[in-house]
Every structure is written in C-alpha cells, then in structure tokens.
C-alpha cells in the first residue's frame, strides 16, 4: 500500500513519518522506527508481549494498524528509563527477580506503568487483573506481581 504521512507523539517526541497505513503498528515501531524493545509474541493479541501505551491505555500493538497511530500519544518500553515511575518499575523488576528470559518484560512493565500511573493504591488482586493479558512462561508470575506491588508501596510511602 502507498505510504502516507503519519504524525504522532511517541515517548514524548513528535514524529512525522511516511508509513504504510495498512502495516501493523508493531511493524512501524520495530521496523520503521527501529525501536525493537516492543516484542512480537503471538501476533493475535493473546500474549501481551507487544503491549504499548496508546493514549494512556495499554493495547496490543499487533492489533492496530499504522494508520490508527495518526494523532496518537504512544509510550513504548524505551521511554521507561526516562520516567520516574518507569525507572522505579525497572528497579523493582530486577530486585524481585521478575525477569528471566525477558521477552515478556516490556509488556508487563508497560501494563504496570499504565496501572500505577492511574492509581498507586492497588491491591494484589487488581495487579493480577491488570496483567491478565500478559503471558510469562519463565517466572510463574509471582515475582512480577511482587515487583509491581513493591513499586506501588514505594509510591505510597514516598
């Protein structure tokens, strides 16, 4: 399909690019923008590895078209180290051994970021609900829930 001009904000930076509007958002992010922190697992929205934050909410970037990025405000894992909450989450994921092979980690960190950004007063159950769309085959989830819970506690104590 012929490329069209697309403008959007990604990780706080304004982009004006030409892209195939019928490509998937994940392909634009990984191939056109060369931001390969966003992973493709299943490609059908079931694993959560490709999660990005789209206008404040986590979505599966394998299920959106590039054209749908027009005017959007998007955050990917690459932004996290620059943001206080993102950086804190990264620290807690390491401290709690919530990362093993790491393929699912960007998705989990972004879901946790969107959750805690809206409300740091979350229960363990709410954390579990929030990560229900993300699959991890290494950790057994408990260290991930612990890491998010520790981040929330840190925010509340701060």
């Amino acid at each position: 399909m012929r490329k069209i001009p697309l403008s959007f904000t990604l990780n706080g930076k304004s982009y004006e690019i030409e892209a195939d509007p019928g490509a998937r958002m994940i392909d634009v992010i990984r191939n056109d923008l060369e931001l390969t922190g966003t992973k493709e697992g299943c490609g059908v929205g079931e694993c959560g590895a490709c999660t990005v934050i789209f206008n404040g909410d986590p979505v599966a970037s394998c299920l959106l078209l590039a054209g749908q990025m027009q005017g959007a405000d998007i955050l990917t894992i690459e932004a996290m180290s620059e943001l206080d909450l993102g950086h804190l989450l990264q620290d807690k994921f390491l401290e709690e051994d919530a990362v093993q092979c790491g393929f699912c980690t960007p998705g989990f960190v972004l879901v946790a970021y969107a959750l805690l950004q809206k409300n740091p007063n979350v229960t363990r159950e709410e954390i579990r609900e929030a990560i229900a769309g993300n699959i991890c085959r290494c950790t057994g989830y408990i260290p991930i829930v612990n890491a998010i819970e520790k981040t929330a506690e840190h925010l509340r104590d701060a």
Partner: protein
Amino acid sequence: MLKFRNYVRVESEAAFKEAIASIEGPVVLLAGGSDVLVQAREDDRFRDHTALDIFGVQAWHAIVETEKDLVIGGMATHAMIADSPLVNRYAPILAEASLSVGSPQIRNHSTIGGNIANASPAADTLASLVVLDAKVVVLKDGKEHVLPLDEVITGPYKTSLSDRDVIVSVRVPKLSEDVRHNYTKIGRRRALSISRMTIATLLQLDGDGVVTKFDMTVGATFPKPAAFPDISAMLVGKKPSSDDIRAVARALSDKIPEIAGIRASTRYKQPVCRRLAERILHELIGDE
C-alpha cells in the same frame, strides 16, 4: 504482512457517508480492529477491501441515557462500557459481560459494535444483550434503522449488514435497580479465553417474592442470539419452588440439543447448563 487494498480513516459521520459513497470495491469497517487484524493475518480475504477506519468518529463513542434507554455508541470500547457509571447503574449485566471480554489490552480497543458485527457465536456480550432486549441502531443507506439483535446476527459470523452498513449505537432499555442479575462465563482460563458457555439472567421479585420479570439465555452455544419467552413464562407470576427452578434449568438446557443439534460438546454443555442454571436461580432468589 496484512493485505488490504487501501486504508481510509474518517472522523465524522459526514466523512463516513462521503467515504462509503466514493470508495470503489468492497469495504471492511475497522472499529477497534481486534478481530479484523487477526482475520487479515489468517489469509488474504481483505485483499480487495478498503479498510475504512471508523474508530475516530467521536459521536459513535458516547454512552448516554434517554428517558427509557441507555444508548451505547457502537464504537464504545468494552473498557468504557465496563467502567461506565450509566451502564453499571442501568444494565450492570452488560458491564460485567464487557469486563469478561479478552484482556485489558483487548478491551481498551475492542468495541461493542465490532463485537456484534463480527457475529462470533462466542462473543461475550451477546447473551447479556439478549436478556436486556437490546436493539441495534444501524446506519444503512443514509438512514438509521433500529433492529432487534437477532435480525442483525443471522448465524455464526453472519449478519444482515452490508459492507457499508455501520452499527452506530446499541439501545438498551434501562432496568429498574431492583432487577437482580447474574452473568456467568465458562472458559478454559479466566483471561483471554474464548467462552465455552455464558449464561445471562435477569430476575425481579416483588415484595412477596413473586417473580415479576425473568429472562435467561445461554451464549456461545447457539448459532445466533436466542431469547426464550417460553422459559420466562415458567417463573413470571410465581413464587418459585425448588421444583420450578429445576424445571426451568431443565427446559433451558434442553434448548441446547433442540437448537444447536447434538454436537460433540452437547454431552458437556447440557448438564453443565442445567446445574449452573439451578445454582444461579437459587442464588438470585436467595432461598439458600
């Protein structure tokens, strides 16, 4: 690589009308896109189609109330519906069903209009829409038509909609707050599972415990949404006994082979439906 002929995005109803008049060849409407993108990946069925992205039409996102109805925009996401104070107040069973769709990531971008238009028999919201007596507002040939759900969905993945007809809203009569409800979903796991069965129930009792309203149906089981006035009539006007409840549960589960025929799943679904229906009714009536 996904195969579409072209991609067009519209942000108003006027632009939509212009687009469907000027686009040549078949159109596939892109609401949230969570079903269309999966289908486009499977094969090249949309090779000749223009993907017409209507998610940006703000007027189709709103959830509002009129005197009698809740009007839920066709592009309202399942997350919006689950969070909506209006839906939670007047049609809480639809909020619960919407919260059981897919995963948080899917719910943030999947829409009620898309869910209906995709017409998957396993769609999580359909059984609730049936007991709520929801009507679908379809923009067709420039005019809005209010249609019953079972005139829109005609079979598994089949609708009466043309490629240029769009579901602009869903109208649900507002329930009085004393109507009790239960939404039950059975899947292989909690998140991201395709429903094996859903059961939606509405029940209203008067001060003496006599049933004044009763609607119950099963989803992910029949080829198209089905309402059962004959089953409603089994309880309305009665103060239900355990025998009445058992009879309703049996009648409801007997609909499975009656409508869907004997399938491999019938041996599982029929008894599960019967036992669940009994449990749900006892719970709603509060007699145990």
